[in-house]
């Protein structure tokens, strides 16, 4: 697999949210607006790239039987770094994302990439994989956040698009499920067309 493909597969063919359905909790829980989705996506990307680097560096030292706990400790360390940094420098976003920041540690996307990719590949490929997957994840979260923000509060990235407040249900829980359902159906359709 060439380097470009390792990087770009995270955006479309193996997109974490739309295709592999990984990391759904932050996907639905934090995307009440486009900016929140983007913030969550970038925080996850940082953890993903860093943990991929460390896992690919220490993959030979970790005994096979304890690899999962070892990966989790590595991921948890980077999550703690992100948590403390965000609390110090962007407290507003930290308050909005709240519980979902410590929960990056149990995002199946990150553990999944550590297990499926970084523990078998060299460091450069692992960085590319982490970046691609992370940015693809951020893209999905931003898209979902933008759609929910437009429908639910009539604005996107806090810029007003139409008058009025929109349908509140799209900002609340049910809207998250329904919008993601339609987005996945849309992506499926695009992929089918490409295959033909």
């Amino acid at each position, binding site marked *: 697999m060439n380097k470009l493909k390792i990087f770009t597969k995270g955006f479309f063919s193996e997109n974490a949210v739309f295709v592999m359905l990984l990391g759904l909790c932050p996907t639905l829980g934090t995307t009440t607006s486009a900016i929140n989705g983007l913030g969550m996506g970038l925080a996850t990307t940082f953890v993903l790239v860093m943990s991929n680097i460390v896992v690919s560096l220490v993959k030979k030292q970790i005994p096979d039987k304890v690899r999962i706990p070892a990966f989790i400790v590595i991921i948890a360390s980077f999550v*703690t770094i992100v948590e*403390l940094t965000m609390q110090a420098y962007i407290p507003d976003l930290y308050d909005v994302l709240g519980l979902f920041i410590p929960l990056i540690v149990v995002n199946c996307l990150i553990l999944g990439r550590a297990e499926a990719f970084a523990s078998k590949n060299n460091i450069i490929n692992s960085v590319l994989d982490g970046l691609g997957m992370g940015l693809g994840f951020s893209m999905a979260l931003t898209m979902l956040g933008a759609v929910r923000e437009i429908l639910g509060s009539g604005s996107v990235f806090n810029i007003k698009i139409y008058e009025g407040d929109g349908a509140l249900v799209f900002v609340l829980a049910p809207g998250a499920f329904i919008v993601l359902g339609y987005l996945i159906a849309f992506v499926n359709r695009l992929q089918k067309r490409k295959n033909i």
Partner: protein
Amino acid sequence: MEYILIIISAIFVNNVVLSRFLGLCPFFGVSKQVETAAGMGGAVVFVMTVATIVTYLLQKYILISFNIEYMQTITFILVIAALVQLVEIILKKVSPSLYQALGIFLPLITTNCAVLGVAIIAVQTEGYDLIKSTVFAIASAIGFALSLVIFAGLREQLELADVPEGMKGVPIAFITAGLLALAFMGFSGIA
């Protein structure tokens, strides 16, 4: 009365899956059959209750007394990972068929954010004491199991329905979940 309020609120009003968005991977992953859904629900009830009690004690007597609360994420996830391993070993001995049925999702309870999420909500966001934390954990887990079983029932019916081509599989499952969440929103008046 206070406890009844915690229970009702955790099961219906702030349902872990449908309103807090925790534990969605197993929610979509093991909800194709009611039977496996119930097994998963049972495993989560056990793990979540024990995990919340253990993490509460850890937080109170170790992290706070040594002033190392920033270690919270790392310690909590390790405790939960160990507990899941324990449940896996027990289940393998006691009920091999259920162990087979749950397959990959049992080790994945470790990365079930509902378990870690409920533990953090109990000790940090809500600041419950030990008994309230335990009640909250049990109720949350029951809420998780309840929504999982209902959703599995809906999906079993959905197999027979005539769904448009593009919506088959995952998309229609999400929309069903959305409607279920809408139904659970109806409970928000009672708290």
